[in-house]
């Protein structure tokens, strides 16, 4: 460079910075808009507190010259990286830039992302990853595989150390789609996000299946069928607002507890309507969300994977300012049975909460695991085992409330005393037993019934006796498996008091490299 004055050098810097701001250029930005999508930098602006973004690596350029890439050098390459604040809290962020070579992942994209994730580890702050990419940059060949590999490795390194949130606002395909898959929560936007290992064109060529991008891997499919998406929204703006909201429930890292956010909602608030929640008719269902929103501060509840495995409900709320993870059966859907999908859904949630010091509140009305060949052949044994392992392993405070049924193995799995549930409550309507009265009587009194001249009547009487003896919480309470039988109206205050008591609870598991959770 020829000798120039400091002033001219400054002008040059300003000009280069301007260039970096437009990424792939005005025309490509137009194309992005035409697809209804925002730019990489606009997304960062929506995500972070105003004026807090500190960019790193804006001058990084790729080193490739194959396939004409020497002519296509872009400042920063196809990702914008840096740090910023969300509600005053430090976060690290990377946002793929679709306007630069289709957002493709190059060697230097990998380098930039790796740096950001390493900084998140060194500074113990969450990572927000914004994905919008055609995949690996084929022109770079194996360098792009190195990049994807580095990203995946660092996703694993960050896992359980700092919260990792992925926002899918464009395509994500091939090996790179495993990056969001390893993170803690995936956000998708309807019509804009796509996630698949193999795209529709290759699928059609190889398997002759004809599917659109949305049918194969759009937001709705991943929300309803695969369970890959934890949250879906109609617009990018709503999506980023929701990311900001979700982060409030988490600590900065595994070494902290989530922040208390006080509300004016009285921790001793009584709700007499809860006394009528469980119907007198044992066959009738009710909506468990009524109980959830009754006991959380201001009724706020952020549900996770709302449309997937609906027989179990998971999500975040606050109780007297304290962030909690709620797990509850939904009796109104499939009788609240635990099946393969609900086991997977709840188990990962339990482990996330445990990793980040978020206490667990379990609301139980479970008739059992779902029987039948579909579940057995699908491996309910392997999947149900995940939930048992997760609950048993968790050392965060565990508070449980049984509202109605809690039978057999499902009673055990749902945060019972036997899996180190700390404080276990039951409503007077609780039925804690090995199984339902009819099933039990059929087995225990089979001979008596067969030998009777009025078998139906005998059976009915035996069922009634069994119900009176066992279909209540007192048998379990007599053993201390239930710590207290409570007035449903007082559920909120009882759970809050329990959480207060358990504030500094410590539990450990044996030292080992790591357990072997069934997968």
């Amino acid at each position, binding site marked *: 460079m020829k000798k120039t004055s400091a002033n001219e050098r400054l002008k040059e810097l300003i000009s280069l910075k301007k260039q970096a701001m437009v990424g792939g250029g005005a025309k490509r930005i137009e194309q992005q808009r035409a697809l209804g999508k925002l730019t990489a930098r606009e997304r960062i602006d929506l995500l972070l507190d105003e004026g807090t973004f500190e960019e790193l690596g804006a001058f990084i350029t790729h080193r490739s010259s194959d396939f004409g890439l020497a002519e296509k050098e872009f400042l920063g390459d196809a990702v914008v990286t840096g740090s910023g604040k969300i509600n005053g809290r430090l976060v690290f962020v990377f946002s793929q830039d679709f306007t630069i070579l289709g957002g493709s992942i190059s060697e230097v994209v990998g380098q930039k992302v790796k740096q950001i994730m390493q900084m998140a580890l060194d500074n113990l702050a969450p990572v927000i990853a914004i994905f919008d990419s055609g995949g690996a940059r084929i022109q770079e060949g194996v360098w792009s595989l190195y990049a994807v590999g580095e990203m995946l490795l660092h996703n694993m390194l960050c896992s359980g150390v700092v919260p990792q949130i992925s926002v899918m606002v464009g395509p994500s395909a091939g090996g790179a789609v495993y990056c969001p898959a390893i993170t803690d929560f995936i956000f998708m936007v*309807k019509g804009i996000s796509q996630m698949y290992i193999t795209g529709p064109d290759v699928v059609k060529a190889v398997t002759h299946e004809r599917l659109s991008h949305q*049918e194969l891997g*759009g937001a709705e499919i991943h929300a309803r069928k695969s369970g890959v998406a934890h949250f879906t929204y109609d617009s990018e703006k709503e999506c980023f607002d929701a990311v900001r909201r979700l982060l409030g429930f988490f600590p900065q890292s595994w070494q902290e507890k989530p922040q208390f956010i006080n509300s004016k909602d009285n921790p001793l608030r009584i709700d007499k309507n809860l006394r009528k929640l469980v119907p007198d008719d044992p066959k009738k*269902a009710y909506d468990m969300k009524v109980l959830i929103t009754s006991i959380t501060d201001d009724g706020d509840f952020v549900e996770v994977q709302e449309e997937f495995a609906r027989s179990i409900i998971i999500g975040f709320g606050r109780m007297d300012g304290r962030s909690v993870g709620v797990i509850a059966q939904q009796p109104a*859907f*499939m009788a609240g049975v635990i099946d393969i999908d609900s086991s997977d859904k709840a188990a990962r949630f339990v482990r996330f909460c445990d990793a980040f010091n978020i206490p667990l509140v379990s609301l139980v009305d479970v*008739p059992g695991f779902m029987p039948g060949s579909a579940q057995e052949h699908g491996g309910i044994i392997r999947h149900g085992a995940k939930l048992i392992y997760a609950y048993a392993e968790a050392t965060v405070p565990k508070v449980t409330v049984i509202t109605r049924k809690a039978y057999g193995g499902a009673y055990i799995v749902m945060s019972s005393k036997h899996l180190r549930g700390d404080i276990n409550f039951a409503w007077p309507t609780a039925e804690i037993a090995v199984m339902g009265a*009819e099933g039990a009587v059929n087995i225990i009194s089979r001979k008596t019934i067969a030998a009777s001249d009025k078998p139906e009547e005998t059976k009915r009487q035996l069922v009634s006796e069994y119900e009176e003896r066992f279909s209540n919480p007192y048998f379990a309470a007599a053993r201390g498996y239930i710590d207290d039988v409570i007035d449903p109206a007082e559920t909120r205050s009882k759970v809050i008091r329990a959480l207060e008591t358990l504030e500094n609870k410590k539990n450990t598991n044996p030292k080992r490299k790591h357990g072997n959770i069934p997968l």
Partner: protein
Amino acid sequence: MEKDSSDSENEGTPITIPMPGLIVDLLVKVGDKVKTGDNIAVMEAMKMEIDLPSPVAGVVKTLHFSKGDNVARGDVLAIISK
């Protein structure tokens, strides 16, 4: 946004059975108008009565089961057309 391919084939939204059980009550007949959330039938499974509501508003185009029938997971109970 792409339409669900099964929609165009059957010209309506299917109501699918979520788990094996028994239809204990059929609450509509072919031709009835339904709103989103209206209960189409009640089935019994796991000793509980499970509501089967319509996910869309429309007209009951076809009914594939009646009271007393055993149903399997994935069976189409009814198709609701616009």
